[in-house]
């Protein structure tokens, strides 16, 4: 075969083959669809998907699981004089039970980072909604409502951030450039919270306007309830009073006659609830709230986290408050109300043998996978609104009005009315009422001891620290048979508290790093 023949026989076909291979694998070959991924622009195309995006903004209110967000919130309450880590058989109760006061609370702490991250995820989703929704193919009415829902939720997230981390990196859009924003002073953050809540309250429907299927969405009442709380933290007592008053006067809400009904799985979205996260156990999915199971005694199938202190029990007893004591503290060895059994005891497992009754679910009602229980979590409730009103009124010098609101809360649990109080005595009575009424819920106590000032000194500073009254009680005065036993969890909690530092959690180191120091650390960390 001559070379020319070979050329004819092979060269042309081969070159053609190469050309085809090259041409057939042009650009399109490298544009591959990514399966199972929802591109935002393509996904928000109707009312259902727009609502799903709105629902996503709610997902971070209570944390996304026991380990991200929810547990951290419980730990905050454990840091107060109401709670212990409680779980005394695993190896971290001391760190968790007194998170705010030990070296474990450092900028590398995973819990401090997780809560921070969880809250900013909420902010991000709300901001995203406010950017996407105006162009979404849905009705103007739905746009207005969903944007108002997002504003309410953004305010909630920033409120949690400013309480726990102080000054915040504040943004209300989706920044596209990589410019790094420094922290804004807490007062600016509060101003944004007030602005969002005011706008939300004017655009959101009243609680009775929503269809049954929308029960649980943010309402005008929810926005006002959160707003009155924000005013209280801002020490803007005039606005706190008028805002709380407007809720009371709206007659949309009332106290439930029976205090214990608030934590029944059969009583979701009650008359007393201004804002509440719904949980139900879907047996196919692991939905529900696990925080409940986590607080039960290990002998009751729980983990034993968040034990309550004998100090709190004493506070109930001092007030003769048996109804709320029994509905707050589930003590090992005591009869379980409504069930024919004694709460099982295993003292070696728990720091105090006192469990959180408000998270208790009767055996018959338990369900869901992995201990996820069908118990809704109330975020804002009317009793708090009454106490906000009472406190603001007391600061505004309206003692009789304050007493009326205070006594309305006390009357429900059969306590005698307070009379004739004024000034500091009245305020102390209201603060004590907050401790008893709201014990263990939504970080009220932890927030209060960092907020309340007595004689110019924050309450936390007189409770904690080497000479704090709570520390002194546990280390020298207490005769509680369980708490005074030797424990893995140190019952000298609070000794290491440092004033001017531990009122806030540290900004995660990673965040400071990522900003190259533009975001600064909190004092002392």
């Amino acid at each position: 075969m001559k070379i020319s023949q070979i050329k004819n026989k092979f060269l042309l076909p081969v070159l053609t083959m190469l050309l085809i291979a090259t041409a057939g694998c042009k650009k399109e070959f490298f544009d591959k669809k990514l399966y199972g991924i929802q591109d935002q622009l393509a996904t928000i195309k109707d009312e259902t998907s727009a609502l799903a995006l709105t629902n996503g903004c709610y997902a971070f209110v209570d944390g996304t699981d026991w380990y991200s967000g929810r547990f951290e919130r419980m730990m905050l309450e454990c840091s107060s004089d109401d709670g212990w880590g409680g779980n005394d058989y695993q190896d971290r109760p001391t760190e968790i039970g007194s998170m705010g006061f030990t070296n474990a609370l450092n900028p590398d702490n995973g819990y401090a980072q997780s809560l921070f991250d969880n809250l900013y995820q909420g902010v991000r989703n709300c901001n995203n909604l406010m950017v996407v929704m105006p162009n979404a193919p849905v009705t103007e009415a739905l746009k207005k409502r969903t944007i108002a829902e997002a504003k309410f939720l953004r305010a909630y997230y920033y409120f949690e951030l400013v309480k726990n981390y102080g000054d915040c990196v504040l943004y209300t859009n989706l920044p596209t450039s990589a410019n790094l924003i420094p922290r804004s002073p807490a007062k600016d953050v509060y101003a944004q919270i007030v602005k969002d809540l005011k706008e939300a309250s004017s655009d959101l429907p009243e609680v009775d306007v929503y269809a049954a299927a929308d029960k649980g969405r943010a309402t005008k009442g929810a926005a006002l309830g959160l707003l009155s709380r924000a005013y209280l933290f801002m020490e803007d007592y005039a606005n706190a009073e008028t805002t709380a008053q407007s809720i009371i006067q709206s007659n949309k809400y009332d106290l439930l006659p029976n205090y214990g009904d608030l934590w029944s799985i059969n009583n979701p979205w009650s008359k007393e609830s201004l804002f509440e996260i719904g949980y139900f156990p879907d047996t196919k999915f692991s939905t529900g709230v696990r925080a409940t199971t986590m607080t039960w005694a290990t002998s009751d199938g729980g983990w034993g986290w968040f034990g309550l202190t004998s100090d709190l029990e004493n506070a109930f007893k001092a007030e003769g408050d048996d109804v709320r004591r029994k509905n707050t503290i589930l003590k090992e060895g005591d009869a379980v109300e409504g069930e024919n059994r004694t709460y099982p005891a295993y003292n070696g497992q728990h720091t105090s043998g006192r469990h959180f009754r408000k998270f208790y679910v009767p055996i018959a009602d338990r369900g869901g996978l992995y201990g996820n229980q069908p118990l809704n979590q109330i975020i804002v409730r009317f009793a708090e609104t009454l106490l906000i009103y009472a406190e603001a009124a007391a600061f505004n010098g309206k003692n009789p009005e304050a007493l009326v609101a205070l006594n309305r809360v006390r009357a429900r649990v059969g306590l005698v009315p307070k009379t004739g109080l004024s000034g500091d005595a009245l305020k102390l009575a209201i603060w004590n009422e907050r401790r008893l009424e709201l014990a263990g819920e939504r970080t009220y106590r932890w927030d209060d001891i960092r907020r309340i000032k007595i004689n110019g000194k924050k309450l936390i500073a007189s409770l904690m620290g080497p000479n704090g009254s709570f520390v002194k009680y546990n280390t020298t005065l207490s005769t509680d048979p369980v708490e005074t036993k030797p424990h893995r969890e140190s019952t000298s909690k609070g000794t290491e508290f440092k004033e001017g530092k531990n009122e806030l959690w540290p900004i995660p180191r990673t965040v400071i790093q990522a900003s190259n120091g533009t975001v600064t650390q909190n004092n002392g960390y």
Partner: protein
Amino acid sequence: MRNKILKQVSLICIFCCMVIISWAQMIVKGTVRSANGEAVSGASILQKGQKKGTSSNADGSFTLSGISAGAMLEISYIGFETTNIAAAATVDAVLVPKANQLADVEIVVDKGYGKTKRNAVTSVISSVKGSDLAGMPNTNLGSVLQGRASGVQISNSGGANPPTQKILIRGFTSLQNSTDPLVIMDGINLGRSGLNFVNLADIENIDILKDASGAAIYGSDASGGVIIITTKKGKLGRFQTDADVSYGSAFYKDPKMAGADEYIAVQKRRNPAYVVPANAANTNWWKESVKSANQINANISFSGGTEKLNSFASLGYTKSDGNYTVGGAYWQKVLARVNFDFTPNKYLKVGFNLNPRFENWVNAGQGDLMPVMRTEPTLPVFVSRPDYNQFSQFSQTGIDRNSNPIAALSRGIYNKNYAVGIIGATYLDITLIKNLHVRSQMNINTGQGYSAGYTPRYYNGNLDRNFDPTDPSSLNKSDNAYNNSNHTFNWIWTQTANYSYRLKDAHSFNLLAGYESRKEYSLGNSASRFKSQDPTNADYYYLNYMQGDFISTGGYESQDTWGAIFGRLNYNYKEKYFIEGNARRDASSRFYSDNKYALFPSGSIGWIVTKEKFLSSLKQLNYLKLRAGYGEIGNSSLNDPASYLNFLSPSFNSVNTVNFGNPRIGSPIYVVARPSNPKLKWERDIDQNIGFDSYWFESRLYVNAELYKRKAKDLLFTDYVGREELGIPGGQKLNLGQISNKGWEATVGFKSKQSNQLKYDLSANFSHNTPYLDSYGLTGEPVLGNAQGYYRLTEELQGPYTKSEVGQEIGRYWGYQKVKVFQNQTEINAYTDKSGNLIQPNAKPGDFKYQDTNGDGVIDDKDRVYMGSRNPKLEVGLNIRIEYKGFDFAMSGYGRFGHNVMWFAKKFNYQGALGANIFAGASSKAWSGEGSTDANPAYVKDGASPDLLRFSSWFLEKGDYFRINNLQLGYTIPAHLIPKMRKLRVYVNAQNMITFTRYPGINPEIYNADLPINANGVDISQYPVKKTIIVGLSIGL
């Protein structure tokens, strides 16, 4: 059973037939011997001017058919002068050794899309001969390569089945993504983890491309180097059968943990309130849980060839049992192979190879060796209580990882895993005109995996905890079954054209041009569900008999594509000066728009100095080649390919489903999952290398050395943290940072004369590599080595333990400097700052005294200092082969020197933290009173002394070790005793028998697969070294 045997027999028959087809009759008989009378096996015998030929057997004999009378036979063998002899009925050829035994540079190596003599190689390639690996346990290629080549660091991680190794060639260039080398077998891309699919017995040769000037031709995914495996092919004119069987035992050395008496004494010292459990036993968990295990290997191969056809077929079987007494763990695999090449005429060559595999294994329950070493000896193995079964796990301390290992391991009995796959290639090679070859090769690599299992109902908890069997919520788990399957299908289609041209016998050119496209496709699904219809009957342990809730269901599908156009030009002048240039333009679907494409150039030069006249007088130096190379190579290895889409994540099935309405129903949600980065582009690794190869003293001494610098820039970086304050969630892909590796490597060897009866080849290789962080992350802040969640390391140590700063070495340990142990209060009181304040006011006698390095009077984060590194200063590999009169002996060893190991487990193994058991006798080493010791602190309750929680120099140990990882002794029966056989050899092989080290923990060779590489090197109760001894028999027919 009968069917099974029939299947196997017919399979073997098919293999035989395929080989026999290509085999033909022969007439000329003869022998090939060396000048001193020794048989030369493997010599090539060719009829001159024809393609007819064969090669000699082990006894030097050969037979050749169809030779016309008077034809000349050309007989050649590496290291000998080629001889020509006239054909006759009987031919006895005598080969004379070459005066200058430069056999090594004549060896052909694979440099990617083409082979060349080592003489012409200008990049950095290490080669390992398949024959050097013969007889090693066929469990994983990774571990047998350890110590064989300089600059190739292999760490065995864990002793689990299947075994895993971490292979780093010249360090690493990413802190997040894969840095494993690419594996190419016969031109087939097996990806970055393909070594498990290669049958050791099939390997002819392994070439390791270490620098980018060599590896760049493979482009994407070759940034960690390339391991090229060439499998055996049929040899001309000879049909042969080889079989090898071996049997052995694998075992661990008992770490000798404390018994109950010592354990109780330690617990009492740790906590005076410790109460000895009422039912305290004295369990030796090691003896209860660990045993020696069988290993079986069997291989058979057939090969042969004519001038037109040659083929090779093999079947290999390996089974290794688990080393646990319960749970029934084992791992077995069958690897088959057919290589087939057909040359119908001088213009055409076609062929295929097929490499099917089957694996199945059972994992040992939910346990590993850590609980075996940590669980308290006071715990009885089984506790008989109502409603508890053998899977129930009790603990006296209540700590997760101190719980009965037997119970956890036992749960393995119902799990099963299967994997089948085929790797195959078919090619067409056309010689268009003289010296122009066009080749098209299609490769497929497909696999399917399936695993299923059943976890019975069991109880986990404290032994003496109250438990009400009637309360279902007290039982920790319901029984459940799972079922997972996955499929992968990858293909690569490569077209290359290779043209060589020689001008005036002085200028040689070789031009390669090619095009390649590749697609990887995978999908899978998984489900697990509670509650069998009949938990007492194993026939109901399948998903379809489960009647409870689904625990999880999942599925995925993904596809990625790559492609490249590449070219290579080689030029040499009189085989003295060499130049090579490469260019490769890569494309990948993982990037967006124009960023998909990137060009990567590379090149290298070589100069054989000994061919210059001015060196000809230097008789001792037989060969010297200087080399220099520069290369750029792309990397698209992302841990998640969706790099440029801004996407939402729907959550229908998790806790964060939001529930509205009355009655409450789950409402679908979308949350922002990850922001896009359309600007993401290829990571670029840039290598520079200089080196030389030299042979001295009749080429018996060989020395080569390399000096290199690797730099990876535009690192593919996943911003896990995000910038929350900017609304940028974690997960964005960015090109951020640069990592460099600087190092050198050298090999020195000495071998016997070719003509000696005592043959030996002794070689040692040395390597050093230091990784540096040039820049990293968004802002260049130091990267701290944390292990959040990983055995709670960061929590237990109160912070990070390594720190990598920009401009400095990566992965150095960073903590507090321990000075001594406070012997008494006076010493504590004497440790004050300038103004007389106590530096460690909380300390008690028996606590550590830490260095106040910044002198500010308090021990805090600012006192942390760098304390040694996990990067060895020197790695040494040692290889010895000796042959004498039928006996052969081989030894290889590997060691690391000049680095530290972070012995986290010391806290448990020495101090009994969290109630863990300690090494027998360790209690005598703890501080027990004034003057007792300065080495270890007093036994204290967990958390009782905040000063003891710091990560200090106490945790650091010198990690130097040298391990004889392979010892082999064989004897080949002389050929005249076995006239019907080509070869018969018996051998004994011992792996990892001796380790020289002063490291006091279990095993100084540490790689933590779950930790990032900058936070690696932590001994968390490392697996001991698995030792094996096998005896085997090789037969050649």
